[in-house]
């Protein structure tokens, strides 16, 4: 079957029990839950409306009622429950749960462990290939202790002001800050805290493993109105904006690697070598960054960066003389 048709049948078989259990649910909610457009959802409901039992007289058909934005379904008791999981769905769910347990730690991890036990129990063992998956997949948590994310999570939930000592990679500087934590986001292999920063009076993204120390204060803050749910996560890492234009040329040996790095997204190939252009508001982080590449990089601009690297390299050399 074409995947779309199969997906549609699967969706209908979950959609009907969802509405049966949540009569009067809004169209918007259904679109969100099932990840479809309004037009698609309406056409799904139209389809359900003409299905039923033989002889398909009005008395045999499933009843679908759309009242304003609210959806009701009746006469479909045989679809009261969704279909059981397939083996792949069970494996996928198990794996996704394991990933959340590993990546986010508490409080989700203990709740998920018990949820998975319930699911496995209800399916009487089913075909849960837990063993195969444990042997075949290894998921490593990002660096910070789960204790930090758990503390930040409860601060987010309770709208508590957090005081922290934070290492800013961009400026190579540790400073105390007071922030209003809003969400924890996982991206590029790290947890990030999105928070309103009192010092700069602006929203900031902090890498959680660079929080040296933190305390959740008793002070509550007013959460911003309607945190826009749809705003994409990130950006993470060094913000690629500012008044200084930097141009670097990587040797062929590093060209491919450099291309993979989000900060070097603006690139041009030059006989196997890669010229990257980026913008920044300070050069401090670049001095450190450039030590990574040794002799495999040429600094094309600005001249100031080259001079700073000369000074920095001499200073580092003095340790080893």
């Amino acid at each position, binding site marked *: 079957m074409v995947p779309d048709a199969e997906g549609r049948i699967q969706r209908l078989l979950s959609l009907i029990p969802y509405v049966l259990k*949540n009569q009067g649910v809004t169209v918007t909610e259904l679109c969100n839950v099932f990840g479809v457009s309004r037009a698609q959802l309406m056409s799904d409901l139209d389809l359900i409306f003409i299905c039923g039992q033989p002889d398909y007289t009005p008395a045999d058909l499933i009843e679908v009622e759309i009242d304003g934005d609210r959806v009701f379904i009746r006469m479909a008791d045989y679809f009261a*429950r969704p279909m059981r999981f397939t083996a792949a769905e069970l494996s996928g769910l198990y*794996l996704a749960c394991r*990933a959340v347990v590993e990546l986010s730690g508490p409080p989700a991890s203990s709740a998920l462990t018990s949820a998975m036990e319930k699911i496995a129990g209800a399916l009487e063992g089913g075909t849960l290939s837990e063993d195969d998956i444990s042997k075949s997949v290894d998921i490593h948590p990002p660096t910070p202790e789960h204790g930090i994310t758990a503390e930040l999570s409860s601060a987010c939930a309770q709208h508590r002001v957090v005081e922290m000592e934070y290492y800013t990679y961009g400026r190579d500087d540790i400073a105390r800050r007071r922030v209003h934590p809003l969400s924890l986001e996982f991206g590029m292999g790290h947890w990030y805290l999105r928070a309103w920063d009192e010092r700069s009076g602006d929203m900031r993204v902090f890498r959680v493993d660079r929080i040296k120390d933190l305390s959740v204060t008793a002070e509550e803050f007013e959460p911003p109105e309607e945190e826009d749910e749809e705003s994409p996560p990130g950006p993470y890492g060094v913000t690629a904006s500012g008044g200084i234009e930097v141009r670097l040329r990587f040797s062929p040996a590093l060209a491919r690697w450099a291309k993979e790095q989000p900060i070097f997204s603006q690139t041009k190939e030059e006989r196997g070598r890669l010229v990257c252009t980026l913008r920044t508001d300070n050069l401090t982080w670049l001095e450190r960054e450039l030590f990574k590449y040794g002799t495999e990089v040429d600094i094309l601009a600005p001249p100031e960066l080259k001079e700073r690297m*000369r000074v920095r390299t001499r200073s580092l050399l003095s340790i*080893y003389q």
Partner: protein
Amino acid sequence: MNKAERLIDLIAMLLEAQRPVTLERIRNSIPGYDQATMASFKRMFERDKSELREMGIPILVEQLDPLEDVQGYRIPKEDYYLPEITFTPEEKVALLLVNRLSSEEVTPLSREAAAALRKLSPDLGDGSRLGQTGSLHWRFAPQREPVEGLTLLLEAAVGQRSVRFVYHSLGKGKAREREIDPYGLYFERGAWYVVGYCHLRKEIRSFRVSRIASAVELANPRESGPDFSRPPDFKLEDYSRILPWEFEEGAEYEARVLFSPRIAWQVERDLGDVYRFETAADGGGILHVTVRNEDAFLDWVLPFAEDAEVLSPRELREKVRERLLRTLDKLGGEGGA
């Protein structure tokens, strides 16, 4: 008539049937089948039946009457229905978090996980439904690797099937087609890797999935496998925990690196579970690190700049000095202190 309508009608009829339903009755009842001749109806029905079974719908064939040779079909409710599960509010919230991870396709089989969660969704009600997660303050960014490739690699590892793909290794080499026997996958610092026996290099290697430049395909699609058997002593952790400077052969030795109080806490947090870390009174500390690939080690340690000093061995200190001198030379500066 719409095929989806025909299939939903068929499932509904077979679910509700008290007794097995004959082919004759199916044909006469469901409008979607009525135009076909008996022969073409049978072909159509067989196709529908196998598609539904592939989706996991348990269609049983049963003898209708012990004395007569007539077969009928039904879907036993107890095999079809997902048992009702009661979750605590905490469990519901945690499952919504899993739903977020799946919708960003972070793990293999993410789409299947999302389908499973949709099936569970009637049991996740009470205002914390799948679509209403505004209060949930944990989020996941989408993963770069295509989920189809991850899923195929996982299924191949579990089913012990060899795979083929075009791989761009780092460095100057051109992308080449590889055949590997995948033993497992790991997720480290935001990237997925597949570990397996590489037929090109004739050894076990790790491949970063984002560097796969083609679709992942089974190497022997016409066979049913398994194509290989995973060595019984293979342990995924032996590969997944290898740091870049431990890659490659070359003699292994221990280096000692002193970190300043400004930075030591970060290093300890990052590597304290892998290597011995001696904390000093001033907040700094010494990391005892295993080195096999010196270039990769220098790539890691030098960006700490004056906050890290390689203490020993002497030969490694000399390597640091040489690299810094070469760097300075390239920058057009003069060596020496």
